[in-house]
């Protein structure tokens, strides 16, 4: 029997050590900010502080009087990255480059001043917002899952512990498995991976299936293109996932866990691996989980590039070393999962929320969100809006708040605000549907979305402006699902292929109205008859765009015209002789020599030769080229 793990002592030591830290500089070290050069910024901070003869604490392990510089997980505002926050002043700087560091240190670290030029400036009102909480992007969010994510140092287990981490696991160790399940059922926490199945109920099923071996799997495959919530949590707060898994393990009686991470997330893999190792070294994981008699350990596995492996049965096949092809349910994983044993498989966000649920208690947790959907949900907000990034709001929030307040409004291609430009939001990625003007005030939760043929899904939110062709968007998603179909069942394998084919025909002006009917009929069959969720959800983007934007489809088919001018094949460039001054600028840009004309006389485009690249339109200063 190993030593009991003394969390309190670790927490106390950490607090001791950090008591005299004057300022804490948190540089975002999420994938986004690293791509923007965040690591160099961290180095620079250290160097500058050191240069000034001051002590910098990197990892907190000794009593140090001075300044702390640390990396964090994604702070959500990647577009503005690298972002740097300074505590306790709660200042946030955007797009920080190494060159800016000297000044930040001088003004905001050594003193309590502000570097105005690095503060976020909000375009609509032209104001600068140096305080993080006041930035409109953050102001209207409600951070629960993301709270620690952008603040703590993911590589420091002690910081996690000092903030109350692993205490819930310790608490759970004193409860019976029934008790844990029943608390979880009371919280009403629904799975965040897409299907929204109540986590407590799933655990309880697995608990009741007797077996000497059970597993807990954390689903970090996050394959939805345009979604990165789970990656942010894995990068920014990996210990909360581990703790969630430990609680799940105690709830069902599992002794082994897997974290399955998408291979395109090398940083997430690295952080979660490091966190598991730290937890093992601390005696939190291992033969004596938290010093108890129960074993529980975690293996991190990298996916190998297959979206469908996010589907639970496919994921299990993949962990077993097989082709990631889903299998019919029942049996459900909770009955017969990994290696045929009862298995609980939950999403990253779900598991990361678990400790918090226990901490606040069911009643308190349910206060957030709506009666049928408790808690908060993270979304990856992207597309034609002023501010993109990772956000978290309580269930029941409206699109209006998200698009107009948090995201700061819809933009044109150029990035300029476009007050009337809102067209639609695609929610739930390739499995979801689109929401339009009429849904702006609908509360976002499972029921409401389901009722209109969309879904919460994993949490992708793509805002599209009036220049977006909805047929092309449907085609894009179909291309994705078609590529990612595992090929097992006929309707999905062949059906998505044919749907894509028809959608391509439409965007290229080759389709007939009969094909449109066929598309709709086929979409219905694929939805109903597919084996797994991938196929079942594949037609959603088509069906929902058809529902709200049918006239756009018809326009492509009947008039061979793309109303937004996005479909290249349907574009026709011509020159307005009224406007053309014959400057010849377009002639020089045209790659195919399609434009001819006398100097100073109106030019013409030879439609045969034109490849519709649009270069002439960009080149013409007189707005004479028409699309």
């Amino acid at each position, binding site marked *: 029997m190993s030593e009991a793990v003394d969390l309190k002592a670790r927490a106390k030591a950490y607090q001791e050590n950090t008591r005299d830290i004057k300022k804490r500089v948190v540089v975002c070290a999420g994938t986004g900010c690293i791509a923007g050069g965040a690591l160099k910024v961290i180095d620079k901070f250290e160097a500058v502080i050191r240069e000034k003869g001051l002590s910098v604490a990197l990892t907190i392990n000794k009593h140090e009087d001075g300044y702390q510089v640390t990396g964090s997980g994604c702070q959500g505002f990647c577009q503005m990255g690298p972002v740097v926050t300074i505590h306790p002043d709660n200042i946030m700087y955007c797009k920080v480059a190494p060159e800016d560091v000297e000044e930040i240190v001088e003004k905001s670290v050594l003193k309590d001043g502000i570097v105005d030029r690095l503060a976020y400036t909000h375009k609509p009102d032209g104001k600068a917002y140096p305080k993080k909480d006041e930035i409109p992007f953050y102001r209207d969010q409600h951070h629960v899952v993301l709270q620690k994510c952008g603040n703590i140092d993911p590589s420091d287990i002690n910081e996690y512990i000092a903030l109350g981490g692993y205490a819930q696991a310790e608490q759970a160790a004193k409860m019976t498995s029934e008790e844990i399940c029943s608390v979880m059922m009371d919280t009403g926490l629904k799975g965040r991976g897409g299907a929204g199945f109540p986590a407590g109920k799933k655990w309880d099923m697995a608990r009741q299936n007797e077996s000497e071996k059970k597993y807990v799997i954390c689903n970090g495959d996050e394959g939805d293109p345009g979604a990165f919530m789970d990656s942010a949590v894995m990068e920014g707060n990996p210990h909360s996932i581990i703790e969630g898994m430990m609680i799940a393990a105690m709830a069902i009686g599992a002794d082994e866990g897997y974290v399955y991470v998408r291979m395109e997330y090398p940083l997430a893999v690295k952080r979660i691996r490091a966190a598991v190792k730290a937890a093992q070294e601390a005696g939190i994981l291992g033969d004596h989980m938290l010093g108890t008699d129960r074993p529980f350990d975690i293996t991190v596995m990298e996916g190998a590039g297959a979206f469908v492996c996010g589907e639970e049965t496919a994921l299990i096949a993949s962990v077993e070393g097989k082709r990631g092809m889903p299998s019919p349910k029942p049996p459900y994983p909770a009955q017969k999962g990994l290696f045929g044993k009862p298995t609980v498989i939950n999403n990253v966000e779900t598991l990361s929320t678990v400790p918090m649920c226990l901490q606040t208690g069911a009643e308190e947790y349910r206060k957030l969100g709506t009666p049928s959907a408790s808690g908060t949900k993270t979304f990856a907000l992207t597309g034609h809006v002023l501010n993109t990034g990772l956000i978290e709001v309580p269930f029941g929030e409206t699109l209006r708040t998200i698009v107009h307040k948090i995201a700061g409004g819809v933009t044109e291609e150029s990035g300029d605000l476009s007050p009337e430009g809102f067209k639609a939001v695609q929610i739930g990625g390739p499995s979801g549907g689109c929401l339009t003007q009429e849904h702006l005030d609908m509360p976002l939760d499972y029921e409401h979305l389901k009722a209109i043929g969309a879904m919460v899904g994993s949490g992708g939110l793509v805002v599209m402006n009036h220049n977006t062709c909805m047929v092309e968007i449907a085609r894009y998603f179909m291309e994705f699902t078609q590529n*990612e179909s595992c*090929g097992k069942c006929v309707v999905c394998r062949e059906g998505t292929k044919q749907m894509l084919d028809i959608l391509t025909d439409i965007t290229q002006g080759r389709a007939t109205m009969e094909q449109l009917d066929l598309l709709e009929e086929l979409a219905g069959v694929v939805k109903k008859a597919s084996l797994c969720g991938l196929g079942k959800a594949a037609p959603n983007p088509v069906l929902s765009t058809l529902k709200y934007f049918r006239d756009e489809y018809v326009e492509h088919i009947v008039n061979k015209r793309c109303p937004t001018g996005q479909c290249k094949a349907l574009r026709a460039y011509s020159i307005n002789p009224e406007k053309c001054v014959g400057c010849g600028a377009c002639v020089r840009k045209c790659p195919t020599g399609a434009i001819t004309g006398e100097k100073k006389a109106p030019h013409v485009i030879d439609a045969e030769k034109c490849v519709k690249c649009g270069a002439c339109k960009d080149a013409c200063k007189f707005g004479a080229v028409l699309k």
Partner: protein
Amino acid sequence: MKTNQTVTVDNKVVPIEGERNLLELIRKAGVEIPTFCYHSEMSIYGACRLCMVDVEGMGMVPSCSTVPRAGMVVKTSTPEIRETRKMILELLLASHQGDCQTCRKGDDCRLLALANRLGVRDVRFKKKGRNLPLDLSSPSIARDPNKCILCGDCVRMCSEIQGVGAIGFAGRGAHSIVTPCFNREIAAVECIDCGQCTKVCPTGALTIKSDTTEVFKAIQSQDKYVVAAIAPAVRVAIGEEFGLDAGANAVGKTIATLRMMGFDAVYDVSYSADLTIMEEGTELLSRVTSGENLPMFTSCCPGWVKFMEQYYSDFASNLSTCKSPQQMLGALVKETLPDAIKKDRKDIVFVSIMPCTAKKFEARREEFKAADSPDVDYVITTHELALLIREQGIVFSEMEPEAFDMPYGFNTGGGVIFGNSGGVSEAAIRFTGEKLTGKKNEDYVIREVRGEDGVREVEYDFSGTKLKMAVVSGLANARTVMNGIRDGSRSYDFVEVMACPGGCVNGGGQPVSVDRLARKKRTEGLYRTDKMLQLHKPQENPYIKDLYDNLLGVPNSHKAHELLHTNYHARSRIKSDRIEQPAETDKLPVSICFGTGCFIRGSQKLLSQLTSFIAGNELEDRVSLGATFCFEQCDKGPVVRIGDETITHCTRVKAVEALTEKLHL
């Protein structure tokens, strides 16, 4: 609450009686649900989506993967279901490439049949064929991936039932394909030619490789004397192709038909099966006496033999040295007929009619050739024979039965039951039992070896000599048994293995029957035939006695060995000529085998030892190390080739010795 354990299927109340899925229950109710990917003996796959039915409160569900629950109300045909099924077929047909008129699958195509049955009259989608190359490399099966609907039946058959796994899924989504590893030709991989995959394949993607054209040409050629030989299992199945019941013995009609087609003589493979028992039984007795090479394994199934050579070659010497009945008869005919009919060996064409596709492979084995011509020239399956008969327009059902030609047409019941699993064992007991006890046994039926299980064990005591036997069919079962023998958890004196589940009655070349009980009925048909014959024991066959008197002397004699026995050897699973290093002229080539056999015997350790020896003596410039898969001496592994010398049971010492010598160190 027994009374409540029912399900309503289309207004009919059906009791739940342990059915593992709704599909079985619905079939019991008398409704034939269309399926492509369901086979009761294999795992549930759930991919074709044709079996969808409507369950009240659940909507459309796949019946193959839904567990029946009491009180369910099932509708098997609603407008929605009908439309869905039709559309599935439309989708399949749109991606399907090939013409039914010229398809190898002919009338057996389930895709075509279902399209007709469900009334698909229009394919509204664009045709999307893939133009993949055909694979005609195998002597036994033909692959046309353009016709594959990816139901996975063959894959599961090959791995779950046959334990081989020669074909599998590759690629993903619309690029998925069922193929041997690395898209190789099937003949270059571990396929054991059993043909079971062609039987479950619903389309023309996997079919029997046909030899009917060659056979037809031979019959038509004036200067050839063409002999037909009919295997036991053929007679109880061929009738199904012409509307007779499964299991009905149609051998007389078959003989008459073959004569009409122009065969010069029609012999019975049951005759040589009797002969096999004489040889194999004698061999068994002498092994039991000497205690050597036990257990003895039967060698009459070429699928099993190849399997054994590939995976269990350490037991190669435990195989009976007997040739199979087909090869015995071929050898005998080619040996004796030239004199009898005054014709050259090369002008005698031996055609065997088999339930089996692996026999096509067997007939081509190098061991079974003499004077450059094979003992068996062509093998056609039951199904191919039916095609030939139909092609010629012969009305099979109306043929008057005729009898075999002698001498190779006389059989006993012992030779006939070779066609089903357990038959060889039973015939062997009828022979050895009498030999061991020295008493004539009136009751010839050995009930203990009969049955449906894939592994049956029996033990006999013949006047103090104990014989422990196992009867195995289906190679996945064979694998279990072999592993048990290897690790010592099982031990026998005699093991009969048939590659096909149930034996040859269920061979890869048999008719694809709609009757799910066909296999059982065929087996019963053979036992019935045995019963009706006057003689049941091979040793009582008068023509066999003659053969020994006039030609062979006694069983296992020198002459018998020359004609009727052979040897089996290790065989690599995957042909690979690509891994050997290109010869670097000034370096000594050293190849280490990394096949299974050598791997389990330590080739990896040997490699480390050799590399460190080479590095330690700075020989890198003088030696070129390479790897290979299988020198086909796996039982003597690890095998290393140094220069032109092949070292078996190689150790570090042996290898270093050879290196020292060859490099003059």
